[in-house]
Every structure is written in C-alpha cells, then in structure tokens.
C-alpha cells in the first residue's frame, strides 16, 4: 500500500538557528508562566491570571514568521504572544506584579499587556471584542498601502460571539491583511466546544466568509509555522485574510482560580493531552534531526531559566506606581 506523505514523513531538516529560536521561545513562555503561577500563589500577582501552558507552539510558531514591523493582537491569555513578539520579560513580569516598570506602568496587569515598540496591540479581555480591532489595523495597513500584516489570536470561546462573524465578514469583504488564529483548546472556560458551537470544525467557518481557512496541529510548532507562513504570504500579496484553527490544549485551568480544571474534563483526558506537549515533541525532533544536541538544549534551558529569574527579581524590585499615576494616561494631552 502506497504510503501517503504527511508532515512527519518528510525528512525533518530543521535549521539549528530556527530550532534554537523556537525551542527557547517556547521554553521561555513555559518557564515564565510557571514562575508567574508561583508568584500568584505567593500573592505577588493578583486578579486573574490565565496561563497558556500547553499552547506555546501557537504563539512561538505563528510569530516566528512575522517581520518585526508586523502587528499582533490577542486576548487576556496573552503572555506568550507578547513575549514571542519580542517584549522584555522583565517588563512583562513587572506588569503582572502591578509595578511601575511594567509595560503598561502597572495599570493593565496580566490581561492588558501592550507593547507599542514591538507592535503588540494588547491584551483584550472582552471575549471577541478585539477581532474588529484587528480588522481595523488591517484597514489602516491597506489604507496606507503598506505590506504589513496583523495576526489576531483568540480562543474557541470567541467563535460564538457576534464580533467574530462581523470581523471575518468585514476582513474578507474588504480584503484586509488579517490572519485570524483561533487557539482551539476545546474549552471556553468550562464549556466544551460541542456545548457551545453548532460547527465544531471552527476553521470551516472561514468558508462562509469566503476566506482561505485551514486547521493545524497546534502542538506542532513547525506545522503552525508553515500554515501561518502561507497565510502571511497571501496577506502580504494582496490583503487576503485567513482563518486558521490551531488545535491545542491548555494543561492548566482556565485561570489560577480554576486550579483543578476537573469539573468539565477528565484527568485521563488531561494526561492524554500532556503526551502532546509541544515542547517535549519539538525538543525530541530537534535532537533527532541533529539540529540541536543535548548540551545545546541544556544551555538553552539554563539561559531561559536565568532570563525568567531576572524577570522575577526585576519585577520584585520595581516600585509600585506612584499614586499620581491614578489620574494620568486617561486622556492624551495635546
């Protein structure tokens, strides 16, 4: 029987530099969030803290094909996207700590990371509401005749919202260079996909809006890279938007207030999904293909751990924002 070629069968030639970049980025996100969880448990971080542990391949893979002048916009589960876009982990952690050296001066917190110098446009915590904003950024890119693109990350929970449909319709109608990336982790908070969506194959909704759409294994960083690279190419060429569905899984609860995540999914399911850990899988591939050696990986791990330790120390040492800042930044002064 003829064997069909699929991704795994193609001899995995991975550039060492790329392997190093992708692996270290995913490890950075993982380590950063593990440390954030610890800080949360210690009461250093307050409010809501939503971790993307398990979903790192989507952020790292998608953003790795962007140019520095491209934009990214995201939800309240956005630490990974912000870090992958190039933000300084020290300033991201300081923002989580609510300190003056945070990206948003401590006024935004975990859910509202913004970094203008790196084209990271937030950090939005009303589900689905940032999709029209992404279309607006696409509109501005087209208006100015630029060849930039914007990637817009959102969860499966945004799909039943009206703004998902409004944004896809407008982006397709006007050919706006937006890459909509649904991080389908199968649960909108505690509501399983099939309890929320009449069409659970989310990528297919792109067809209703006549835009290119495809699903991708969101645990395979190289596969994410490939599908996003194609979408970016289309968007740069003539503004064609895409809907991509990255099938992923969050290993932790919805937020730190959902530590067990046990009401709506089984322990067996979580254990099974953990076998798809994107970092474990990619590390194995990188080693197997010879792109990285065990000692390369150990070095990367050490460097990532140091970076995160520095970020934590920096955040801890950063002062609280002064009280006068309560009333600044509400309006831009002329």
């Amino acid at each position, binding site marked *: 029987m003829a064997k069909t070629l699929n991704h795994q069968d193609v001899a995995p030639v991975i550039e060492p530099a790329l392997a190093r970049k992708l692996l270290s980025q995913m490890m950075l996100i993982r380590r950063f969030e593990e440390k954030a969880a610890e800080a949360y448990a210690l009461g250093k971080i307050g409010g809501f803290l939503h971790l993307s542990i398990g979903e790192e391949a989507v952020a790292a893979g998608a953003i790795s094909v962007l140019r520095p002048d491209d934009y990214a916009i995201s939800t309240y589960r956005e630490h990974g996207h912000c870090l992958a876009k190039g933000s300084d982990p020290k300033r991201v952690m300081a923002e989580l700590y609510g300190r003056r050296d945070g990206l948003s001066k401590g006024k935004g917190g975990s859910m509202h990371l*913004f970094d*203008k110098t790196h084209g990271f446009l*937030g950090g939005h915590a*009303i589900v689905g509401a940032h999709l*029209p*904003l992404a279309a607006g*950024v696409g509109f501005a890119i087209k208006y100015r005749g630029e060849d930039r693109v914007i990637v817009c990350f959102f969860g499966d929970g945004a799909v039943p919202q009206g703004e998902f449909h409004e*944004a896809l319709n407008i982006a397709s109608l006007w050919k706006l260079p937006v890459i909509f990336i649904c991080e389908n982790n199968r649960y909108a908070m505690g509501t399983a996909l099939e309890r929320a969506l009449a069409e659970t194959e989310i990528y297919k909704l792109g067809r209703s809006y006549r835009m290119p759409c495809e699903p991708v294994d969101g645990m395979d960083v190289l596969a994410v890279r490939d599908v996003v690279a194609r979408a970016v190419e289309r968007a740069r060429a003539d503004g064609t938007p895409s809907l991509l569905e990255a099938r992923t899984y969050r290993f932790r609860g919805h937020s730190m207030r959902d530590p067990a995540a046990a009401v709506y999914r089984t322990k067996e399911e979580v254990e099974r999904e953990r076998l798809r850990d994107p970092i474990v899988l990619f590390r194995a591939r990188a080693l197997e293909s010879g792109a990285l050696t065990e000692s390369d990986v150990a070095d990367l791990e050490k460097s990532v751990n140091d970076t995160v330790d520095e970020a934590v120390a920096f955040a801890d040492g950063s002062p609280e924002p002064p009280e006068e800042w309560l009333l600044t930044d*509400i309006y831009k002064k*002329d």
Partner: protein
Amino acid sequence: MAVMTYREALNQALREELRRDERVFVIGEEVGLYDGAYKVTQGLLKEFGAKRIVDTPIAESGFTGVGIGAAMVGLRPVVEMMTFNFALVALDQIVNAAAKLSYMSGGQFNVPIVIRGPGGPAHQLAAQHSQSMEVYFYHVPGLKVVRPSTPADAKGLLKSAIRDDNPVVFIESETLYGIKGEVPDDPDFTIPLGQAVVRREGRDVTVIAYTGMLYRALEAAEALEKEGISVEIVDPRTLRPMDVPTIIGSVRKTHRVVVAEAGAGFAGMGSEISAFITEQAFDDLDAPVERVTGANAPMPYAKNLERAKTPSKEKIMAAVRRVCYANGS
C-alpha cells in the same frame, strides 16, 4: 460668514478636515453611495472616493471596532452612527476599548476617533429611535462627549473633535439638522472642546440647556422677559469635560438655577450639574436648583404622549417662576 444649516455646517467640517488631513476617513452605514441617511455626508464620496468614505455592512460593533483599531495605529476615523441609538450595539467597543486603551496601555496607545450621529428626541420615531443618548457616555472616563446646538458650534466643535487625540462621542441633534445660522468660512475656525457659552445674558436666573432644550429655554426666556424675569442661558456644548467655571460664574451672578434636559432625569445631566452647583456654590443659591426633565418613560409614538414626554417651554417657564418665587409659586 455664510448662512447655512446645521447639517451643511457638519458637512463642511467633515469636508475641511478630510482635505486637511489624509489620515481622516469617514466610515459607517450609508455614508457613501446613499449620501448619508440624514445627508450629513452628502457629496463626500464624490469628492474623496471610496477609500476615505467607507460604506459598511450593518455591524455597528464591527465597524466601530474597525475604527478603533485603525485609530490605534494612527488613522483618525470619523465613525457615523446612522442614529445614535445604534451606538448601544457598539457600547462595549466605545466604553471598554476606545475609552480605556490609553489607560490600560499606560499611555502607549491613544484612540483619536470621533463617533458621531444624530440623537435626542425626534418626531414620532418611538422608543428605540428617539431618546437622549449622551447619558450612556458622559459617565465614562476616557471619553469626551459633545452636543452641539447651533450650526456654527456644529462645525467648530466637530473640527475640534476630529483634531482631538482622544475618543469623542459627538451627538448631533436630529431635530436641528434643518436650522440655519451664521457659520465662519475660515477653514481654521474651531471651537475648543470643554468650553460652555452664555447664549443669553440675564440677571435673575440661569437656565442650563443644550440642543432642543436650548431652544425651548430661549423661547421661555423671551416670554419671561415680559413678566419681568431676566433669564441667562448657558449652553455647556461639551458635556465631558464640562466647563464648570462658566456655569458656576453664571450661578454666582444670578443665584438661581434651572437645568433643562430632554432625558428621563434620574441620574441625568441635570443631576450632575445640580450636584456640582450645590458642592461649589451652595452659599450663592437663593433657591434650590430645579430640574426640568423628560418624563420617566420610554418615548411613546402617539403625538400627544410624545409632547407630554419631552419638556416644553411652559414647563421651563414654570420652573423659572418657582426658583424666582414669582406668581406666588
């Protein structure tokens, strides 16, 4: 100076700002091909083309979000709400995104957007198309809220709103589109946001009113003049930021105040104005501040009920007499 309608003044403001700044564009339902549901954008598509005069599908939240996203990266959208009632569909975008992005980002992103369209009570349009919408917006830190009452103000304030670096909710008056007035031709003519104006000088009582209520107040003042009561009228023009000093100055002069508003009253503009007058000028008052407000009901369709819903000249006159302790009241 040219005499033109309020509608034409708005059109001229848009035209001048579109000519002045390439970053300005107009987006909304029927703004282009149809020339605007209320013809405020008449002729703009012809002059500026479809790139800058953008017809949208009916998706208020979607196209308001498009405006906000475009503003985040430096364009200056003017979003038209066909009527301001529809802005409620986009309320989350306006309140949670436009108003807060600057603050949430620690000042990294500002949102230079104008959201404009007609509002206020209209003629027999019933509950969903005829109401005072400003109340839903002026509570929100991060927004500016404008309600222009004359053709010159419509032009000068809209130009300032478009040049402002912050989100401005600009609610025109549906019933005033046809009124005429003198409007400066100078393309550099603007009226700063946050400045009230004394529409009529008087000695005995201050009436604070804008848009339709301003005209009822002016009629009331003429009639009261014959009764020997001299009414001063202050038009706030911008509701947020409110020009408190001009209002307090007038109160210190007349010592009596009536606030007239078309909205339903409870927690309305009059409540706020009355509160800051009490806080800042209590000792200057010779009578409690009176509010004349719309009835506490949705807008009815029937002509007679509609008349009863919105404050009349007579109701304003009665309130003025009460604060002046005139006619035995």
